[in-house]
């Protein structure tokens, strides 16, 4: 089977303008992955499936990974001009001098959601080839193209990633929640997910139930108000 680098070269030759990066893996499993840009994802997927030598016809596993915003502290050397009193000079006489100081600068690397595809070949009996795609951010741009039109096996698995991670797959034929119920609001597999205080809370049109629900909300409000 081709190495990851060779597969990358083959993709670049077949899909001009595609963004493909090889991501290293330090673990003894040495399963390196290919990070592909969302723009050419479908074309790349079709090439991987239909190429005679690769023939990656079996999409085994699809899953999401949540990477939170990372605060990175860097030590930077900064040179700037400082006014210093002249040695042996008159009091008040200063001269400008260069001074180098180390400064700690913090910046936030934005988090992203990632989707991972494990591909195998039934025809050639090789694999895995690991594909990854990343969203622009974790909030309003959590969109990626769906690979379900290329491999049907992604149908339920992408629905699951949408359900638990909140990645919206464009072009998915039937994108609905799969494991959680339709009215559920949050995405339970995200790293910053907080469980609701009561899963059973569910306002319904029935008066009796509504009344009970109100009592419950009042109770929660009182608990939150306590210092």
């Amino acid at each position, binding site marked *: 089977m081709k190495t990851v680098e060779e597969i990358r070269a083959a993709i670049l030759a077949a899909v001009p303008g595609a963004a493909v990066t090889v991501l290293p893996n330090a*673990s003894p*499993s040495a399963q390196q992955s290919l990070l592909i840009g969302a723009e050419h994802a479908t074309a790349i997927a079709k090439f991987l499936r239909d190429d005679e030598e690769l023939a990656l016809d079996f999409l*085994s*596993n699809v899953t999401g990974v949540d990477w939170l915003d990372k605060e990175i502290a860097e030590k930077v050397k900064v040179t700037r001009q400082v006014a210093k009193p002249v040695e042996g000079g008159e009091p008040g006489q200063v001269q400008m001098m260069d001074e180098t100081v180390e400064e700690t600068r913090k910046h936030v690397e934005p988090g992203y959601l990632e989707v991972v595809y494990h591909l195998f070949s039934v025809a050639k009996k090789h694999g895995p080839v690991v594909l990854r795609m990343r969203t622009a951010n974790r909030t309003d741009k959590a969109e990626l193209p769906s690979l379900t039109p290329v*491999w*049907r*096996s*992604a*149908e339920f698995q992408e629905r699951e990633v949408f359900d638990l991670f909140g990645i919206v797959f464009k072009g998915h034929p039937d994108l609905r929640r799969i494991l959680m119920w339709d009215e559920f609001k949050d995405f339970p597999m995200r790293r910053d997910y907080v469980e609701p205080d009561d899963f059973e809370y569910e306002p319904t049109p029935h008066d009796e139930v509504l009344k009970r629900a109100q009592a419950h909300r009042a109770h929660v409000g009182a608990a939150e108000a306590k210092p």
Partner: protein
Amino acid sequence: MSSSSTHVDKSGYLDNVTARLARSEKLDGWNRPPVIETDGEGELLELAMGPHHPSTHGVFRMDLALDGERVIRLKPVFGYLHRNHEQLAQNQTYLASMPYTDRLDYICSLTNNWAYALAVEKLAGQAVPERAEYLRVILAELTRIQNHASTIGFLLQEMGASGTPLMYAFREREKILDLFESLTGSRMMCNYMRFGGCRVDASDAWLNGARKVVAGLPQFIDEFENFLMSNEILMARCQGVGVLKPELAVNAGISGPMLRASGVNYDIRKVDHYGIYDRFKFRVPLGDHGDIFDRYMIRMLEMRESISILEQALKQLPGGPVMDPKAKIRNFRPKAGEAYGRIEAPKGELGFYLISDGSPNPYRYRVRPPSLINLTVLEDMCLGSNVADVVLIFGSVDIVLGEVDR
């Protein structure tokens, strides 16, 4: 079907067809599910089959749209048993998830253990001693036999063969479960494998017991085949029903006996040679038509091959430790990285995908559930057939809801 001449669409069927057409247009070429058209006469019935239907093997629902007896739409509904297994595993150490893997496919806890141990061993570069590898093979093949036996038993039960075949299958299954209990302490929640070996060694008495059980198994299969193989009802209900084409099976990620029943030669034991499967001689049975009957037969034949593997393994079993002495139990922290490990579980390809960030818990823990993914084509197989056949087609997929919903 009612004979009224004007079409009354109370069920929202036309909306469903439009939605389904729109959905299937998004799929690539031939991997679209067929759209079954009706004559537009009479009313269509929407039927929720489950979640408490006895044929669904647990809490699972199929929303059917029926034209008389014919199925024209089928939507599986999951999640009744969802407990976010993956999130649970990410909040505890690697070893602490081992007992939870038993609860995925609770019929085959030992293969779940093995798949998880294999993925972690890949992640950490952990070696496994030879005797432990043999014990794993022995237990996995015993698991396969008891899973296939009970699947066939349930399938026949659903076909109307009330009680008897299922009890015959369960009689053999019980012998195997007794072996599991005497070795691991539990019939079904075995929690037996560890990263770098197995928890306890098998005694000579246990091995002799296993040899005895294995020696009795061919007779059970012969008996089963004699009684049922040429049964007219079985053939009439199974042959040509629920056909799955090999191209769609591969494209939809179907694995295990279901894939091989469609004639695709793909057995992970032969492809990956994980563990020590390259040391055993066994054949991979393949189907020809991809119907229920082939799926039934494949399981019968696979049981025979498993018996052959068991005989070889019990003969070759070497001495030695069952745990790698260098294996780290306390403070187990794999280096940052990721690994995907998979095995040929009785139901299909069971995989575990792990990402480590160097901490004692996995950063990401994912189960690739064969039961869920094998249901992708349920609608394609059922469209156009009768409701009674849906029960059989569903039974021939062989799922466990503990694994589908996780």
